[in-house]
């Protein structure tokens, strides 16, 4: 007997899985999302957050560019609050770049991207950060910043309100089958080890870079190439708009002002496993050097941390390598391809096109289930009810986006001063069983993402783990330490300048004033200590 039942099991809590979950529930299909870590803890939450106008792909990957154009416009309708419309510059800084310009202009034209060439003087007037090397500037008003965490949580909350279930830290370890039909999944809680079985009519594999591992449980092959990308976070926005290098996409040619920070991206290195994501110093250095070619202030800004994400590139069998592989996606109908009914994979793609990916795979699965309701995700906003994103108020005041009650943030107590996160922003998440670690709180609220990298808020959140989660002291202290440790992994990659002083203050506070090092030595780690799966190693 299975422990529970649902209509469709969606595996993977990134933007694709969250989009699929919502799409299913909007078509009236009962669904459950299983994620082996936290929501948005894999590829999505480790993206650079560039909402692609399509300009980046318009020369080499026209199909992907066209999807970006269309989906970008849709997202502005349905996910308004997850986007900051910064617009973007594509800049040439060398003769080689200038040689790329005609193809770029042609590509924009072919894919329908709004692109305007502006004079360097005008560009500098609008964006004083543009470097002296800049020779040519194109303005692409549809580039922007897409908050990947907010997007996933928004989709998931919308689906939950329609009855969807969400289980985080729940890994699929096997499938239930009747003949050649998948009839359910076996799961294991990655923290408690608890095993369950869930009966369902269909399973959608939306695990991106992990899709091959899930498919292998059914002895079928899905070739996804994990390609690592390293990003560097600067402590302020550096520029008003996104900046791309106008050339054949390469390393370190994107600057994204993202909420209160700027993100430099990225590299493209094939890795043997999606969880093996070492951050090499050469990558970090290269990111800053290349960024400095496009914008002043990149090399002098305070780098706060570096992180690595993994692209799930679908291997179409071509000889293409890394970045030259298509950013397109594919729906794999395993019934047709492998003779396994009830199992479908959605692979490739990127955050900007998550909704379309969800629509395509849901179309297929719904049809198989005999559901004829059409997809409405392109039209119905995520915040389709008044209270919709009520729990998701974490937009910093720097953006001028008022939190829902719109009152003055400066007079309210904060849990995280760096990112302006208040007690009422974090408290609802402590009631959510999907939230298990302080990193999970961070992904939902941005607490701990500012310059002090959780030095202050970790203590306040640990206190709340006692009062709101009824944890014992050692478990709450361990959670605080885990949070600091996870942040530290990124901090130490860019450890120069004022980072050292910040680390001195943090050590003085936690190790000297709190004696946390001795607390950790004295208290043996409790079994099943929360450690986010898929966390950066």
């Amino acid at each position: 007997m299975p422990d529970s039942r649902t209509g469709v099991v969606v595996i993977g809590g990134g933007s694709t899985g969250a989009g699929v979950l919502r799409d299913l529930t909007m078509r009236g299909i009962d669904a459950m999302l299983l994620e082996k870590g936290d929501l948005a803890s894999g590829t999505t939450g480790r993206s650079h957050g560039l909402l692609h106008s399509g300009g980046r792909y318009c020369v080499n990957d026209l199909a992907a560019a066209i999807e970006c154009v269309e989906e970008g416009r849709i997202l502005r309708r349905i996910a308004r609050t997850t986007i900051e419309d910064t617009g973007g510059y594509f800049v040439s800084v060398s003769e080689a770049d200038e040689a790329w310009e005609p193809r770029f202009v042609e590509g924009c034209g072919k894919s329908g991207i709004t692109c305007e060439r502006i004079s360097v003087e005008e560009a500098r007037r609008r964006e004083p950060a543009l470097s002296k090397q800049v020779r040519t500037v194109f303005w692409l008003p549809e580039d922007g910043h897409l908050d990947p965490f907010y997007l996933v949580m928004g989709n998931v909350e919308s689906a939950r309100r329609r009855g969807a279930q969400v289980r985080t830290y729940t890994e699929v370890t096997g499938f239930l089958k009747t003949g050649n039909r998948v009839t359910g999944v076996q799961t294991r809680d990655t923290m408690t080890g608890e095993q369950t079985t869930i009966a369902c009519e269909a399973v959608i594999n939306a695990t991106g870079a992990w899709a091959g591992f899930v498919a292998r449980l059914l002895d079928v092959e899905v070739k996804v190439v994990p390609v690592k990308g390293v990003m560097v976070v600067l402590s302020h926005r550096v520029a008003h708009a996104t900046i791309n290098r106008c050339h054949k996409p390469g390393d370190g040619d994107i600057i994204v002002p993202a909420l209160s920070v700027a993100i430099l991206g990225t590299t493209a290195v094939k890795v043997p496993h999606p969880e093996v994501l070492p951050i090499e110093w050469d990558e970090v250095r290269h990111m800053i050097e290349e960024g400095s070619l496009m914008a002043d202030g990149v090399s002098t800004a305070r780098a706060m941390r570096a992180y690595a994400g993994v692209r799930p590139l679908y291997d179409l069998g071509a000889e293409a390598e890394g970045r030259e592989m298509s950013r397109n996606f594919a729906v794999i109908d395993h019934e047709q391809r492998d003779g396994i009914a009830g199992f479908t994979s959605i692979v490739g793609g990127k955050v900007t096109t998550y909704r379309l990916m969800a629509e395509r795979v849901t179309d297929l699965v719904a049809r198989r289930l005999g559901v004829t309701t059409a997809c409405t995700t392109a039209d119905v906003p995520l915040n389709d009810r008044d209270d919709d994103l009520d729990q998701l108020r974490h937009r910093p005041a720097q953006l001028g986006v008022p939190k829902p009650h719109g009152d003055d943030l400066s007079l309210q107590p904060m849990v995280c001063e760096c990112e302006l996160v208040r007690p009422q922003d974090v408290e609802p998440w402590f009631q959510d069983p999907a939230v298990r670690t302080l990193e999970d709180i961070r992904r939902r609220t941005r607490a701990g993402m500012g310059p002090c990298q959780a030095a202050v808020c970790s203590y306040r959140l640990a206190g709340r783990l006692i009062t709101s989660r009824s944890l014992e002291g050692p478990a709450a202290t361990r959670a605080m330490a885990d949070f600091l440790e996870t942040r530290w992994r990124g901090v130490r990659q860019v450890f120069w300048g004022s980072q050292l002083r910040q680390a001195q203050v943090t050590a003085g506070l936690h190790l000297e004033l709190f004696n946390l090092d001795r607390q950790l030595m004295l208290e043996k780690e409790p079994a099943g200590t929360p450690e986010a799966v898929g966390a950066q190693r």
Partner: protein
Amino acid sequence: MKFDVAVVGSGLTALVAARALQKSGRQPVLIWPGLSSLYFVYATIDVLGYADATSTEPVERPDDGVASLIARDPSHPYARAGLPALREGTALLLDWLREAGFRWQGSLGENYLLPTAIGTPKPSCLVPDSMAAGDLRRPDPIVLCGFQGYEDFSPELATSNLSRSWGGAGRSVRAIRVLLPGFEPGRLFTSIDVARALEDATLRREVASRIQQQVPEDGVRIGMPAVLGLTHDADVHQRFQDEVGHPVFEIPTLPPSVLGLRLFDRLRKHLQETGVEMIWAAPAHAAEVADGRCRRIVLKSAGREQPIDARAYVLALEDAVDGAMRAGVHAVLDPFFHQVLARSAVPTERTDESPFKPQPFAKVGYAVSDRLQPIGNDGRPLAGNVFVAGGSIAGYDPVAQKSRGGLAIATGYRAATEAMAA
């Protein structure tokens, strides 16, 4: 400007050095580069909490502990400074605290064991009166009191940890929270706001009575976040204790550290009131050396460079990268002699994988002679009349052993003594 001895630094090290010079009848100038991390994290003066970085057994007698540390490791900054400097410097500081109006307790012969804001016992040597009642060597039950809507001290977290590590056999710990009149939840307030407000007797009595209502039992002591007065600490603490009717002790918590503010603001002001000249917010960025002696250091003041000529100099930076020390991507450069103090191929080399272990970068500093003179690559002093104290001595890392205050005192005192003789 010409001076006798110039002391550069804004922490306890610099204060002790300046005071030692002053007490010996010298005319120091204190060059204060800006707020140091002291203001965020200082509370007690820890001399030696643990014998090494990994032991969990607190040192009982700091003086004995330092003596055996010196015997074990002759290159340790305590060994450079010497036990007499620690002893004499501590006596000087305790006298100074009394003269400046503080009530502090403790001696080098014992460590207190005080609960931290996460409820971990921590050994500390010299402690303000207002913290002493928290001593965990005493068995009296503890009530930890927080405030409603105050995020910076969690009595629940501290209680849960403390009752495991210390509780049992009549040693009970429990948590309460009281509502602070005028500081209702939903309103932003910091430790400093509360500390200032509690200097008002009416409010204080009201808070005391609210605590009494929640603590009907006898024989307990009350632990609170360190907010008992911003400046008039001893008075507020003593009066509040009487008003509550139980011993009360403060626990240092999230920044801003009211205890650090009280200590450093008053000591600095006391120095000024007693005639020590101060130059504010001026990081030093160059030294002029001729014939083996430093003739001048140059400060970056607002809009200009300011030369300071002294007979001797004490560089008393609190931490490895305090003040003007520059940590570039690969090299840490000292601002005076422009020596590369440390070089790393990749930035991660400066750190340990764990944020809770000793960090290589913290040990960065000048190699020093037996007289605490900075020495260059040729092994000779860079300048015979410059003496290094505090965090800019190579190998100086007070974090794991909980020795920040003692190291500051010992090296600050020793450097000042050497500067007098130079």
